[in-house]
């Protein structure tokens, strides 16, 4: 009891600013406003242009954009009983793990789960776009033989140089380690974490864990790493900013981006309408063309999207892209705490 009281007191001050924004939200029906939390930067600018603007044109809803969208902030908002966000672009893991507790269940019939690829939906999330964890190498650094298999990522003798990876266990690295170690792609899940870490131990001194996407980009452009495993949009940006990146299409894990609704969102119904709207073909295509990611719904024909050449080079959903594996949502939701703990203790030692 006393604990909650203190928390409320402490949160009051911090949330003063948020409350001001909130007041405008809930007061009148005439001015409908949704608060949209996302990554910030270019990605959120693309969301404004491709997803928010058309919804404003259609329904008159205004958007308040905030960043970053942090799961810990959702937990703090829900605990204080003052949820300020209506839609948040963040990892679906949290929406899955805290469904109904920290995140709203999606019950609008417009969010028909059968429209999405199998294994990409949940009570608390549907995908808004699809992307891949792309393995690529710096072509300037391999003049002779170039990497062509996922196993080459783990062969530092034949293919020397640092491997830049994101400091995050669900970056596709664990799955890649297992496949390189001989596990069949369809047998990767349930994921044998210890086996994956043992495989990673063989190249640990060549692994560089990048703390941010910006750092990945900087390191690849400055040739600090010879190989990189990072998400589609960042591979594109890194290639555009001067790194001579070539993607290797052998085994690639793919995943979804999701907009989730924090528990107690002041405009849950409207947020769901916006969510259904942004997955529709017109918006999904516009968004795909801006970010280089792929549309979520199966009824959007990817060949009709006007990707640029560099976007095509890192798009895993085009033909001839080797083996694709959708990262197993239930497994990650179930095991993420265990993996994060083990991952942290593995890498700091």
């Amino acid at each position, binding site marked *: 009891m006393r604990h909650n009281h*203190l928390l409320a007191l402490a949160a009051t001050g911090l949330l003063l600013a948020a409350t001001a924004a909130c007041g405008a939200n809930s007061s009148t029906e005439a001015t409908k406003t949704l608060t949209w939390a996302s990554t910030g930067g270019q990605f959120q600018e693309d969301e404004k242009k491709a997803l928010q603007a058309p919804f404003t044109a259609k329904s008159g809803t205004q958007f308040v954009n905030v960043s970053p969208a942090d799961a810990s902030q959702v937990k703090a908002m829900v605990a204080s009983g003052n949820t300020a966000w209506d839609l948040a672009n963040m990892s679906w893991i949290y929406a899955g793990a*805290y469904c109904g507790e920290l995140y709203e269940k999606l019950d609008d019939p417009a969010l028909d789960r059968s429209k999405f690829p199998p294994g990409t939906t949940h009570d608390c999330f549907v995908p808004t776009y699809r992307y891949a964890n792309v393995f690529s190498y710096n072509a300037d650094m391999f003049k002779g033989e170039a990497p062509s298999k996922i196993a080459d990522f783990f062969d530092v003798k034949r293919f020397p140089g640092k491997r830049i990876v994101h*400091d995050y266990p669900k970056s596709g690295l664990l799955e890649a380690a297992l496949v390189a170690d001989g596990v069949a792609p369809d047998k990767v899940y349930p994921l044998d974490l210890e086996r994956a870490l043992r495989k990673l131990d063989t190249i640990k001194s060549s692994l*560089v864990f990048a*703390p941010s996407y*910006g750092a990945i980009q900087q390191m690849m452009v*400055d040739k600090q790493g010879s190989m990189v495993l990072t998400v589609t949009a960042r591979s594109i940006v890194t290639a555009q900013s001067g790194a001579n990146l070539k993607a290797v299409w052998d085994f690639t894990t793919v995943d979804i981006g999701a907009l989730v609704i924090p528990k107690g969102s002041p405009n849950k119904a409207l947020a769901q309408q916006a969510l259904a709207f942004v997955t529709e073909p017109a918006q999904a295509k516009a968004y795909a063309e801006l970010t280089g990611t792929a549309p979520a719904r199966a009824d959007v024909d990817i060949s009709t999207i006007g990707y640029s050449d560099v976007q095509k080079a890192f798009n895993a959903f085009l033909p001839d892209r080797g083996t694709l594996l959708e990262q197993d949502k239930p497994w990650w939701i179930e095991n993420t705490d265990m993996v994060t*703990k083990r991952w942290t*203790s593995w890498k700091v*030692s």
Partner: protein
Amino acid sequence: MPASTASPPTAASAPPAGRRPAARRRRAAALLLLLPALIALILFFVLPLLDIIIGSFTDPEPGLGNYLALFSDGYTLRVLGRTLLVALIVTLVGLLLGYPYAYMMTLASPTTRAVMVTVVLVPFWTSMMARNFAWMVLIQDGGVVQGILSLVGLSGVTLLGTATGVALSMTQVLLPFMVLPMFSVMQQIDRRLLLAGQSLGASRLSTFRKVYLPLSLPGVISGGSLVFVLALGFYVTPALLGSPQSALIAQIISVRTRDLLDFGGAGAMGVLILVVTLIALGASRRLAGTGTAVAAHAVAAGGDR
């Protein structure tokens, strides 16, 4: 305040009895002026801190579970030890660089001194991210720093991704916190004391050791403890310039809060580092206790502290 009444200079100039009510009024006014800061401090610091402490014992379940986990998870203590070591190195290197610098500032002309202050403060005015990325470019493989090191025969030294690289950057940004307190103390040292020492037959070295060093010690201690405490909480620099193998405590607190949503466990880590900080501060005060008292006397004679 009560302690100073015992010291000779204050006792010699004891106020006449008539000033007493005025002093009381002054104290009331001072309290009133303090009130806004006090309220802000309680609302934004004391209450959240209490909440963190309580949460570390109650979330997810009441007991010492969060604390026991810190000692048994196999890495928190190691990372804590590494954090303390890096903070200590940064403090010592900062002292070695900052002490002569602050000393030169007391001798320099006002113009030179202004330039010296600016030089020390420049990293402080630059954006934190820009500064860290600049360091990244400087110390990366094939970067400027590596080039200079290979010129003096130290080729192939890797700095990016190591604790050394992190300590280097931290030392630079924390230098103002080291230099400025030392300078303000040194500035108040009466240089005639040095002449007096030498006129009594002491060599320059022993005058420095017996007179100047003890008098400058309060500045060393306040600068040193400030830098040490700030270094314990560094997050962005080790995240960008270090590697997980050289992770500091703030990074694993961040994993607990942001990736595991384990606020109780993160709170326990925070409380642990707070306790360690308080112990370190207390020890440093005690260690320098006598020297500080002597020096504080002399400085207090020159004006209010």
